[in-house]
């Protein structure tokens, strides 16, 4: 199950997708910035709806079997927040998810969060900063943290076994203010203002019921900066996402990402578990390390992204290759050699770079990776992988995990229903 194409690539089309679009609008329009909204409904009716939209300003359907924003090819920006519930009434929680669902459906369609009353005596329903803007492939994805099931709402018995408390990994320096939360909301869009607007309005709706616990924004290079749509680079300068599983294939997504009806609990079927790790990079230290150290750290070449000793980005790792001295060409404790997990354990990575200005204490940049991954069961996927990485990964010299969260991303909602209706 080697995969040659990054699923996180937001502009590259699979051939089928390209043909389908050509059928409705012609390829020439695909990269155009405007005028495509009308084409989308027909372009997104396939069984692979979430993987289909490729337009800079398009609409990604909110309703569906799965939530969007999981196997959806990555957008350029993320604005993510975790909420803590202040209410203790399950009825309030239900209402919150109903309001959020309605709001998210409108926002992702490029509409205001609610109808305006027009009254001059009232604050406008929508905060307004996205007025006149395109939908920009906005997706809004909701998940529940383990604290949600702590008994306040009588749901302790419904906590999925897979929604464990993440163990402490080697050299973790997890800070509470960047971790956990009862509910996570992942907002992604091809425009940072559109993304921020959505999270802000959801927070406004929540006032009195839930408060923000943490917020983190992230980015990658925009589609406009790289029209060819090659694999984006992280802040260490390496292509990141090359060997992500190709989840546009439903069989792959079902195996790696989606909780299956046969998995427990039933209300999670069609959902997925999201891991968030705020990983700070020691930027200054990395910048003064030699190129060969950098490449050995990842096990790939910096320029091409190819596995060490190879020339093409999507060449097989072939971890058993030895050099003249009998040493592995790709060091055994390099990041990819370890994360490859003998090809047996896979996750879908969907992280963004973050930069949160300056660390006032040290005068160093506070920047790194807002690591996000989706998996069907973290006990079998993320956790063993991270345990291995945390203990011996060469990369550890340059990174520190400072925030963490595991969330049960609910199944999608159908029109008339709401996110969470399988649980509440």
């Amino acid at each position, binding site marked *: 199950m080697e995969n040659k194409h990054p699923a996180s690539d937001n502009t590259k089309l699979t051939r089928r997708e390209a043909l389908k679009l050509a059928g409705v609008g012609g390829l020439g329009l695909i990269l155009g910035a405007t005028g495509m909204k009308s084409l989308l409904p027909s372009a997104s009716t396939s069984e692979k709806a979430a993987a289909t939209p490729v337009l800079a300003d398009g609409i990604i359907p909110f309703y569906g079997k799965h939530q969007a924003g999981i196997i959806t090819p990555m957008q350029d920006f993320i604005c993510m927040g975790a909420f803590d519930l202040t209410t203790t009434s399950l009825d309030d929680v239900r209402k919150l998810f109903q309001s959020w669902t309605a709001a998210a459906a409108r926002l992702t369609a490029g509409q205001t969060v609610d109808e305006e009353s027009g009254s*001059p005596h009232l604050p406008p329903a929508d905060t307004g900063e996205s007025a006149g803007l395109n939908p920009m492939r906005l997706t809004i994805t909701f998940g529940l943290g383990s604290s949600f099931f702590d008994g306040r709402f009588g749901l302790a018995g419904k906590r999925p076994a897979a929604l464990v408390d993440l163990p402490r990994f080697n050299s973790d320096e997890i800070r509470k203010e960047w971790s956990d939360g009862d509910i996570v909301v992942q907002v992604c869009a091809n425009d940072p203002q559109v993304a921020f607007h959505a999270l802000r309005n959801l927070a*406004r709706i929540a*006032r009195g019921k839930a408060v923000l616990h943490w917020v983190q924004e992230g980015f990658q290079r925009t589609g406009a900066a790289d029209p060819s749509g090659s694999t984006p680079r992280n802040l260490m300068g390496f292509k990141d996402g090359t060997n992500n599983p190709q989840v546009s294939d439903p069989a792959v997504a079902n195996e790696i990402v989606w909780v299956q009806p046969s998995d427990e609990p039933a209300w999670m079927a069609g959902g997925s578990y999201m891991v968030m790790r705020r990983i700070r990079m020691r930027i200054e230290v990395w910048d003064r390390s030699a190129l060969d150290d950098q490449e050995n750290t990842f096990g790939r070449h910096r320029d091409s992204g190819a596995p060490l000793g190879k020339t093409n980005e999507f060449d097989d790792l072939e971890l058993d290759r030895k050099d003249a001295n009998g040493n592995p060409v790709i060091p055994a404790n390099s990041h990819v050699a370890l994360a490859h997990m003998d090809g047996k354990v896979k996750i879908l990575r969907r992280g963004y770079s973050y930069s949160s200005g300056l660390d006032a204490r040290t005068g160093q940049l506070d920047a790194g990776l807002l690591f996000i991954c989706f998996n069907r069961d973290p006990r079998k996927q993320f956790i063993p992988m991270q345990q291995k990485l945390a203990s011996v990964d060469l990369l550890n010299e340059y990174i520190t995990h400072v925030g963490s969260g595991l969330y049960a991303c609910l199944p999608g909602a159908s029109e008339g229903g709401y996110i969470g209706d399988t649980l509440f």
Partner: protein
Amino acid sequence: MMKKWGYPLSAVVLGSSLLLSACGSAETAKEEKKPEAAQPDKPAATETTANTAAVDLQAPIDAYRKWVIEQTDQLVKATESFTAAVKAGDMEKAKSEYAPARAYFERIEPIAESLGDFDPWIDAREGDVPDNEWRGYHKLEKALWETKSVADQGPVADQLLQDVKQLRVKVESVEIDVKMLVTGAVELLNEVSTSKVTGEEERYSHTDLYDFAANVEGAHEIFKVLKPALDAKDEALSKEIETRFAELDAALAPYRKGNGYVLYTELKEDQVKKLSQSLDALAEPLSKMGTIIGG
């Protein structure tokens, strides 16, 4: 001398033109509008009078005015005692009376603000106004807690008392309309979130929680007088606001101490955060009270 105004409710008329002109010279007239000249400033405003016919909006205004006058009476009394202590050089007494006296002002702040320069005269912090114009409570606060000498503060105390008395005269005839009440309630809470919850209001005395509570009480009073009207228009909203007031009150409760509050500097970061979030939780629905003004 209460007057029943017949102007459209949403015509915001700030300032008072009927006030006694005892101190007209110091008065800035630029923000004032004569009632007879008051025009609805938005076309929509004319429609709103009709819509409110079913709900009596004059009664709340009268009730609120009465309350404002009572508060200002108390403010005068408390300020008299406080400034006397300052002038007598009784630092301890002055310090203990500072925060409770100010609370009367904080409760009616939007009214004071609508009356021209009273707010800066009475409540400016150092740096809010040019140094040579700085006067009022916070100037005495600095003398009491920072420079620790009130020897030369007699004139400041006299001026403060005079300002407060003049305010008392003016509130008698201040024009109040529903729009002003609705905005005033939200403004009071905004005051809390911008300066009180951050500990910026009381730089030297750290008695910010007194102001916090007083602002909230001021907003609560407005809600109370408008509640019947709001119940008639949107009962769910009214209920929500009531719950949030109760929750905010409960959030403040742990910090009550004697007749007052603990110092801001005693609060931990997460306690401040919780207060701030409870405040936002209240202010959001409260900002929708304008729904009673037609529309």
